């Protein structure tokens, strides 16, 4: 029996870490490109470095856009913006969401019901729509507004998940044991609840990152994201839509870059989940 059990265990564990590695590699591409733009870009992003809408060449690997700016430069800056948006939105969403979720888990029955119902309704709205409303409410569109808006929109999802997870942990005997032995509630939260729910939360954060990147691109596409000269992929695609017949690359490459990042994050989430949750038949 033990020999049989050993064999199927070995296989999924390799697969799990492969997903994780592919995810990290895809994310790594963007990290390198994005970080690189802090120090160096192939061309000045605002400079009209070549002819308008020129096809790919040795000088411009991805061609130029309708103003003659180097497309590769724009896409690389897009990486940096996407990473900033994803990370920023997830951090904000996590801070608000985890706090709210924990509050709901600890709250009295009535407050908990109210919070849960409110979260359910908020979640029924797509992230993008909530973000649009937050942007609409703010005075002007900027990269910061977009990040905050997305973070707030994501926080509902995080809050609901945290609430469910924390309630499950709170029902465990060891919490009663900890309380009986004199551990204060804040200590219980930091020593028992957060460490226990963290693995599941982090998987969710990786997925949220992807969601945030797509939502930001959509915001920029709709003209509600960061204003020029921030070369968000969404805005690049929106600008290229009009010239898709003469210069199709401009409408394709930013999209591919975005899909690579989001798939990378999804793989990373899968890999993390396999690692965090041995019950799903994968590696510890």
């Amino acid at each position, binding site marked *: 029996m033990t020999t049989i059990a050993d064999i199927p265990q070995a296989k999924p564990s390799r697969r799990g870490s492969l997903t994780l590695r592919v995810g990290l590699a895809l994310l790594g591409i963007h990290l390198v490109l994005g970080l690189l733009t802090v120090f160096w870009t192939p061309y000045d992003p605002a400079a009209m470095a070549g002819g308008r809408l020129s096809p790919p060449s040795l000088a411009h690997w991805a061609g130029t856009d309708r103003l003659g700016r180097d497309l590769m430069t724009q896409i690389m800056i897009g990486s940096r913006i996407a990473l900033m948006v994803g990370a920023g939105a997830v951090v904000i969403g996590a801070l608000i969401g985890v706090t709210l979720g924990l509050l709901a888990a600890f709250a009295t029955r009535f407050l908990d019901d109210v919070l849960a119902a*409110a979260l359910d*309704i908020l979640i029924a709205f797509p992230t*993008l729509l909530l973000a*649009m409303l937050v942007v*609409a409410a703010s005075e002007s569109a900027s990269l910061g507004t977009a990040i905050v808006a997305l973070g707030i929109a994501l926080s509902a999802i995080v809050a609901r998940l945290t609430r469910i997870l924390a309630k499950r942990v709170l029902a465990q005997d060891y919490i009663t044991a900890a309380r009986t032995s004199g551990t204060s509630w804040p200590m219980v939260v930091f020593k028992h609840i957060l460490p226990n729910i963290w693995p599941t939360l982090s998987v969710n954060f990786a997925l949220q990152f992807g969601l945030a990147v797509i939502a930001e691109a959509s915001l920029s596409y*709709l003209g509600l994201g960061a204003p020029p000269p921030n070369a968000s992929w969404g805005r690049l*695609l929106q600008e290229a839509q009009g010239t898709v*017949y003469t210069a199709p690359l401009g409408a394709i490459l930013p999209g591919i870059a975005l899909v690579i990042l989001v798939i990378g994050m*999804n793989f990373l989430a899968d890999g993390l989940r396999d690692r965090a949750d041995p019950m799903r038949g994968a590696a510890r």
Partner: protein
Amino acid sequence: MLFVLLRLLPGDPASALISVGADASQIEAAREAVGSNLPLAQQFVRFVSDLARFDLGNSFVSRVPVLDEISARLTITIPLTLFAFLLSIVIAVPLGIIAAVRADRWYGAAISTVSQLGIAIPVFWVGILLVSAFAINLRLFPSGGFPLRGWADAGEALRALALPVLTIAIVMSASLLRYVRAATQDVLGSDYLRTARALGASFPEALIRHGIRNGSVPVISILGIELATTFLGAVVVERVFALPGLGSMLLLGIEQRDYPNVQGVLFISTLFVLLVGFAADLVQRLVDPRLRDRMGGRP
């Protein structure tokens, strides 16, 4: 609940109405006009009584009653949503079942992989790609817009909706497919399916008689969420294809700071989301009698 949501999110309606840098008297006048200077309780009463009469106010910009504008635009958004919804069910359900049943074959794995790709693609990019393939290169469909005469010209209207519907359906079916596949996998591992097989039912027979009914319960609640998401997600697709639907009304409302329009669209959307959720609940109970008792007390 709705009131709180509407009030919390977009800030003071008056600040949306006026331009940046207005002086205090202008602000006060604007607040007077939208009634946000009244105490909150009074606002609430006004809000509820207006809603009860289905009075959503008039647009700040065009002075047209918000409800008229919404109902005109729904003639585009509702068909768009429903066609896309039906098409994505037609795509996702069979493919999802195949992906689960034939997970060991190459096409089962291929379906799963493609659906993984599908959930990572932003819907507007699918739209752009479809436009460039079918509208610009093949010239099969218009690249955007809607016939001015609306549904009086049904053929043209349908042609205008073809690409947007396909766009939404592609993205929606990708995520739906994953739920169908997961539900089917649960069914495949279940005891009742094995019992049915042991009693002599063939595999397809057992799957159709027992599997579909059981597997559809979780999928229906997802379908409810997806339908609501599609309805709201039409915002982006309507922009790609320049369709004058509810989504573009919301966008225009935001751009022009036309607060009654934004609020009206939001109200109708919330109503729709709640109704769909309720409907999904009802359908679930029709399909699964066990839920009728267990969830009897809950709304």
